[in-house]
């Protein structure tokens, strides 16, 4: 196979059966872990939680 051609695009391969696909498939959009774990490891979840806790503290102080 000519090195400068990718994906077995050599002229010698014309008419041959297609080689077995060895490339990695497109990434599955489904999460590999549970949704709960995805939420709990998401910084965009903990920032609002921390601010909510702070707001409750301020409310207790001023009321």
């Amino acid at each position, binding site marked *: 196979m000519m090195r400068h051609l990718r994906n077995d695009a050599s002229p010698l391969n014309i008419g041959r059966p297609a080689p077995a696909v060895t490339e990695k498939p497109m990434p599955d959009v489904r*999460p590999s872990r549970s949704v709960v774990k995805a939420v709990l490891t998401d910084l965009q979840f903990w920032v*609002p939680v921390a601010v909510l806790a702070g*707001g409750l503290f301020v409310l207790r102080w001023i009321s």
Partner: protein
Amino acid sequence: MSAVEVEVVEPDRPGVLAPQRLRTLQNVGMLCGLTAGAWLGAAEAPTKLVTLGLSPVVISLMMVIGVFLARWTLPALIQGTSYIVADLRQAPHLIVWAILAGCLWAVANTLTVFAVRDVGLSIAFPLWNSNSLLGILWGIVFFKELRGADWRRWLGVLGGAVLMFVGATALAIASASQVPAKDAARGIVAALSAGVMWGTMYIPYRKAYLTGMSPLSFVTFFTVGELGMMTVLALTYSGGAGALWTQISGARHILFWLLAGGFIWVIGDLFQQYAVKYAGITRGIPLSNTNQLWGLLWGILVFGELHAASGSLLAQVVGGSLVMAIGAGVIALSSVSRSEHVSWQEAAEREGARYGVRSDYTQARIAGEGGAIGATRRRSGLDWAVVGVATAIIVGFALVARPPQISIHVGWSMALIVATVAMLVAAGSALWRATRFN
């Protein structure tokens, strides 16, 4: 990658909008932001009732009940519950963020009632509107807003933010001469804390709308968090269910006005959410924060606030407000470039990959289209039941309502109402034509 390369390469990329479509969505988003400002400003007027001696927590609770009724009535009327359920099934993890955002809103709203009581509507408004500064920060840090933007857009957004901060500071200084020092400090802390909470609330908003969810679907669970948190706060700070009921029943003649305030607020908030969706946090929120100017108009023209203030104080308040408005305008003029929109798309793809949301759904919704969710907009018996119950509750409160004992200028209030409704019609029709409320 340079901006020129992006313009050449990206049109072939799935989900990247054509320039005309991007402009249309941005214009609609900005119109929604301005309309949100008018309605959010109008909704704060009922908090003036706090001067009648009603507990701030009870005021906030009643507003939230009005909000709850509106957040189920309007989506049921416009989309139907079956469509909402189908939409939520596309990204069920967002229910967590919706409830969390609702909790943030409830606490922030309660803080604003304390702030209005201690420093007045004209002063408190711009202070909690500092939320846009924090919102801009979160938009840049978490959602890739302004990535790929040129230096003029960065300068516009950050320069506008600085102007808004200067204006808010001028108003905070003005507050010191209006109320006792102890009350002023408490009111300022309450208003600024509300600003931080509302600024952070835009994280769930943006997360939901990058994923593709319709605002009309998101708010149905958002309000569960609102009502749940507010009920806990009211029970805690009122001394239990019995004491709370005593306060509510004793104030039944004015509760309608608070429900109405909550209902009006929801209309403004819906437009604000569409502004976040189609113009982003960095542009949509500063525009919706023009509610500060509407609040100023309501406070001064309708309720006669600052009527005894000196000329210099009045100049300081008006000047500070105008500086903030100019800052918002500068930010709004910093439109989103196509290369920045590609960054938004990348943030959306990250969300989809993390939580397993279909990419075609996300791409269609970012483009303001419906996407295939296996449902159509139609009203069922359940929807009409929701609307009927909500209407009956509001009518019931209206029947026992009495005009609040507070002097207002009727002529100015009518003029502001007409202007506010006109903006609703203009933004609502534009949103429908461009996105069908997606």
